[in-house]
């Protein structure tokens, strides 16, 4: 099987390529990080605590939930369970992405690539056309988001919202537009991919629009259930042939 990677001749160019690809998605997350900074401040976290949390936890939804629960006076184990459940979906993403890591990736590289993986950078990395991704490319891709997430948390805490409210509201669609820009070109000519995507969307809407389910299932679990079931459906109904027959992502 031909193992095409996107690593160019040197480590530096691979890293820079990744960095360039990761920058737009990192900019999209600035409003979210600012919002977290503002929330953290209203929950009376110090600037240092807020930035520390953004840096080492680096999981948007989990941080919002944790700070919310914290202000409501929830116990730490309770918060940890909520966060753990919310993040289980990352196991599925990381497993899927691990298939694109080169076999010779070192311990530290695997550790850091895993640590910095998020919904956004996973989507970006998984939708690259190459069969394999070099670790410097993936690390270059992850870094801008980690950096802007942390610094914009600080900006939000300080209370400097750079953009006017009306623009910020319209910016809410940014991350979804990026997701569509990644998804649609790769399912356009892939019937099986298109069908499983539509199933995942329909199930996710069903949960969201059924008040009882929406109240009992948090977003992380909903993603895991709906994406998992739709992928399972794909694996059963459209099993993939042996390597090379179908074009990989």
């Amino acid at each position, binding site marked *: 099987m031909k193992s095409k990677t996107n690593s160019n001749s040197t480590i530096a160019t691979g890293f820079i390529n990744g960095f360039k690809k990761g920058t737009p998605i990192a900019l999209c997350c600035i409003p979210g990080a600012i919002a977290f900074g503002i929330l953290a401040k209203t929950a009376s976290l*110090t600037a240092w*605590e807020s930035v*520390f*949390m953004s840096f*080492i*936890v680096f999981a948007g939804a*989990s941080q919002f939930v944790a700070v919310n629960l*914290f202000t409501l006076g929830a116990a730490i184990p309770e*918060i*940890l369970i909520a*966060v*753990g459940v919310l*993040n289980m*979906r990352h*196991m599925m*993403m*990381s*497993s899927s*992405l*691990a*298939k694109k*890591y080169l076999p010779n*990736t070192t311990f530290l590289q695997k*550790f850091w*690539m*895993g640590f910095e*993986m998020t919904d956004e950078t*996973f*989507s970006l990395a998984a939708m690259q056309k190459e069969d394999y991704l070099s670790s410097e490319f993936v690390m270059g891709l992850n870094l801008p988001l980690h950096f802007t997430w942390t610094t914009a948390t600080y900006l939000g805490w300080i209370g400097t919202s750079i953009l006017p409210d*009306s*623009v910020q*509201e*319209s*910016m*809410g*669609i*940014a991350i*979804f*537009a*990026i*997701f*569509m*820009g*990644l998804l*649609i070109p790769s399912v356009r000519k892939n019937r099986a991919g298109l069908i*499983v*995507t*539509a*199933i*995942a*969307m329909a199930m*996710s809407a069903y949960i*969201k*629009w059924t008040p009882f389910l929406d109240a009992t299932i948090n977003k992380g679990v909903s*993603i895991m259930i709906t994406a998992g079931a*739709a*992928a*399972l459906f*794909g*694996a059963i109904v459209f099993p993939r042939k042996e390597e090379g027959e179908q074009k990989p992502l």
Partner: protein
Amino acid sequence: MTKIIILSVLMMLVTAPSRILPAFFLTGRKLPPFVESFLYYVPFTILGSLIFPDILNSTGNIYSSIAGAAMAFLLAWFGRGPLLVLTGAIFTAFIVSHI
């Protein structure tokens, strides 16, 4: 060490392994075809679940969200680059929220 710092460290200990461990166990490993198929479809379905229906509330106004989403869909379908999809969606949502 404040309570928040301790909480953050514990949160990291809960969230990080779910992202890190698969990189160790699955990199370069051949899995049964069924599991490979499943993992192949995961990126599509995750994106599907992430996008829909949350995109409809993304701007705080359903009409501007739908307009922005439609613009993003069209631009992406006709093969425009990510930057145009992004700016097209934001611009459309912005315009529609002002009429």
